[in-house]
């Protein structure tokens, strides 16, 4: 594509940022450091769907199992039962999936859908608040355009949940948000119930380039690190003030209420463990520096994103319990992306660390299964014995774990949300297509029924007044 399109896409992946996870549930139990009502709370309501059972399917559960000739029963939007032999009321609707495969709905931990929408025009570049190197006060959800036509395209690729992150132009880019891939008139209507917020942090070239080119700090990697630590020192002090104030409320002599600060409020929530850190970081030594910063200030890094060199430190990531979210094969666009190996995800998995394939691309998000397939094949070509049941975790349960929703979705297990995809064949084939995509047991997309293929407001009448875009 010419001109503006690749430019914007480059900007998107060049500025992968940091996301803050902060869950509504956590916020409910939060200390008294903010207003009583939860702002921008999820208003998502699952569509109440009738019970149904999928039969004769090959299930990839996302827990490392493959169950052949299996059935899966859905009731009240949840998985009620699954296995090669389950009891089902004869009144329940049956979907015969002979020859087809069923996986959990795919989850992308790194997208910019809605904040870098299509078409990529000047006025829609809403993902990177590059006016200060620490913008923990901004929330990606406030930039999300719910009618981004890229969302239904991702749904057709089997993606039921995606995290939207601010870009990576800043050291601390702001809060990210996890959305269900559903039609809504508000971003609150898409917010995954109970999902924590994330905090997007970024290592390396992007922040130092953005600010160094303006003659401001940071202009070096050491400047980056000074910037993170300075921010966390302020956050720790802010937290201490609020903790002290909150504690005083239970005494006879309440202290003066500290001034509320949106930036430090977000960072304090990270220190309290209510927001999950998603850290854009390519290089091995930078990741290990970031691990030390996290230890210095007492927070945990949930995942390194674009972790090009994760394979070099896979043992460390395993020990620290940090996920590595990676591309299957992208490389070369920056010096810090020069040491990519095709086996990266497989080598992380081999070390028993948490491997995730992410997209950072509205194109890649439509083919997460293919990206995982390439990463799996590369590992196997070098002697591993990865199977579909293993690699599916990289785009389902491991992703759910990293964004704090693994107790609700990301695997085919009894009690989990019925976020599922019926694939025409093994999803790790290039010929495989998502045929039916369910969110909370409701059929949101059916490849064989145009009336069940959502189109955004933007798609409506855009090519000709009577039609839809696709």
């Amino acid at each position, binding site marked *: *594509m*010419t*001109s*503006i*399109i*690749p430019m*914007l*896409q*480059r900007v998107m992946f*060049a500025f992968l940022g940091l996301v803050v996870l902060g869950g509504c549930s956590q916020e409910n139990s939060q200390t008294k450091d903010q207003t009583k009502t939860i702002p921008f709370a999820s208003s998502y309501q699952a569509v109440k769907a009738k019970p149904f059972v999928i039969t004769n399917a090959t299930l990839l559960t996302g827990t490392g199992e493959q169950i052949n000739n299996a059935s899966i029963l859905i009731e009240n939007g949840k998985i009620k039962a699954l296995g090669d032999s389950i009891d089902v009321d004869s009144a329940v609707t049956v979907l015969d999936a002979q020859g087809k495969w069923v996986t959990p709905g795919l989850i992308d931990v790194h997208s910019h859908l809605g904040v870098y929408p*299509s*078409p*990529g*025009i000047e006025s829609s570049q809403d993902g990177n608040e590059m006016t200060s190197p620490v913008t923990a006060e901004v929330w990606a959800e406030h930039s999300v355009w719910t009618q981004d*036509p*890229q969302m239904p*395209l991702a749904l057709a690729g089997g993606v039921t949940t995606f995290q939207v992150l601010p870009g990576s132009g800043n050291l601390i880019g702001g809060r990210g948000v996890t959305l269900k891939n559903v039609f809504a008139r508000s971003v609150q209507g898409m917010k995954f119930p109970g999902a924590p917020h994330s905090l997007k942090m970024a290592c390396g*070239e992007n922040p130092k*380039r953005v600010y160094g080119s303006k003659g401001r700090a940071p202009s070096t990697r050491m400047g980056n690190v000074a910037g993170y630590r300075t921010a966390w020192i302020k956050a720790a002090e802010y937290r201490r003030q609020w903790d002290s104030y909150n504690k005083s409320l239970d005494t006879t002599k309440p202290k003066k209420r500290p001034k509320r600060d949106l930036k430090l409020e977000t960072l304090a929530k990270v220190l309290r463990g209510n927001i999950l850190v998603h850290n854009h970081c390519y290089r091995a030594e930078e990741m290990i520096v970031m691990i030390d910063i996290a230890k210095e200030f007492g927070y945990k890094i949930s995942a390194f994103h674009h972790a090009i060199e994760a*394979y*070099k430190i*896979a*043992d460390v990531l395993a020990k620290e319990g940090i996920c590595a979210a990676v591309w299957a*094969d*992208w*490389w*070369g*666009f*920056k*010096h810090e992306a*020069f*040491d*990519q*190996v*095709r*086996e990266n995800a497989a*080598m992380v998995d081999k*070390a028993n660390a948490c491997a995730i394939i992410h997209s950072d691309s*509205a*194109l890649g998000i*439509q*083919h997460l299964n*293919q990206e995982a*397939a*390439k990463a*799996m*094949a*590369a590992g196997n*070509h*070098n002697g591993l014995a990865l199977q579909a049941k293993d690699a599916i975790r990289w785009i389902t349960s491991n992703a759910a774990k990293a964004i704090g929703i693994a107790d609700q979705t990301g695997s085919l297990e009894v009690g989990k949300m019925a976020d599922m995809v019926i694939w025409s064949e093994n999803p*790790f*084939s*290039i*010929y*495989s*297509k998502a045929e039916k995509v369910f969110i909370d047991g409701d059929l949101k997309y059916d490849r064989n029924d145009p009336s069940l293929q959502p189109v955004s407001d933007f798609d409506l009448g*855009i*090519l000709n007044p009577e039609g839809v*875009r*696709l």
Partner: protein
Amino acid sequence: MKFPMTSILILGLSASSFLLQIKAEDYLIKNATLHTASDQGVLENSDIFFSDGFIMQIGKNLKPSGNYQTIDASGKQVTPGLINASTQIGLVEIDAASSSVDSTTQLKQQGASFSIAPAIHFASTVIPQNRINGLTRAIVKPVGGTSIFHGQGSAIALLSSFTNGLTNKNSALYASYGIAGANISGGSRASAYTVLDQALSEANYLRHNRNRYLPGFDWHFSQSVQDLDALKQVLEKKIPLVIQVHRSDDILQMIALAKKHDIRLVISGASEAWQVADQLAQANVAVIMDPIMNLPGSFEALAVRLDGAAILNRAGVKLAFTGIDWQSTHNAYLVRQSAGNAVAYGLPAEEGLKAISRNTAEIFGIENYGQIKVGMQADLVIWDGDPLEITSMAEKVFIMGQQQPMVSRATRLRDRYWELDNISQKAYTR
């Protein structure tokens, strides 16, 4: 597998196309499924014999005489070495390291005359990483700078590192229309159209009146003299004019422009080309596209769709594929994934293969490459499965008959860190 520069033979064919030959052993590949990309289609359980870099025999149970290595490829599939029709291989080492990028110029007098061939770096790490994944050839093109004409691209073979793999010095001349063309022409497509039209008219005038214009003469043309001279090859139909254009009515304008100036037009990008598939077929205009790109990323690409390639093929349009724009250099081999997706969305498999081999060779005039056919150079890949399947891997790669090492900088890094023990000794594993 290292050959000194002196082993390269260059057999002249024309000014911009020549036949590059390298020293190669003789091989017999046996019992493979051959996806020939030729009129023979798919040949099951067949053999290929190649000698001195050229395919000599194709058939069952071949028993050539002489000395050669035999490779049993039972259960394997063989294709021509693949090609990506739009890359910056050898012009870009790291995109964000400007000192390693040679794909564009800001020199005002270099538009059409900007010929990227001398800058192509054949020891780039990008070449082996693509080669081990089955890419044996590439079209290398300039990126637009200050002129609506981007310059002239080349065709290369991805030979081992100190070999100059240039096969076609100037294989096409590039320009842009639509948003990109407008941006560089004052802000409107209408201006861009005029700039293209006037340049072609002036180039045509100049080539017929060249003797009137001597050094020192006061030029009153819209382009530099060397740019107008460069357009001569297009006007003489020696090379195509590849115009990057997306919107369907913009494509029709370019078809009309090409007809007016009697040039061979190829369109590139082509997001909405399927909407004017019949007009493209009728005008015999080939299309370079990435069939996996289905994002309505701009207002000139709103109609883009995953079955666009299939629709164009059904209308009879010749297709050449590239891969996703921002990885079409470092991972130019991913053109195979793009082709596979086109096939998943309705393009016949053999047409998908042709769009990453034969068609590209034909569009850009690359001699003796692109098919598994007697007389062609032996650019061959042995795959461990369906060559368009996402999980298939290249097992052996031959370029001009020479077997390529399956090693890249990335595989070296992989091997160094495959086991995470004895870290202090890693520096000594070479």
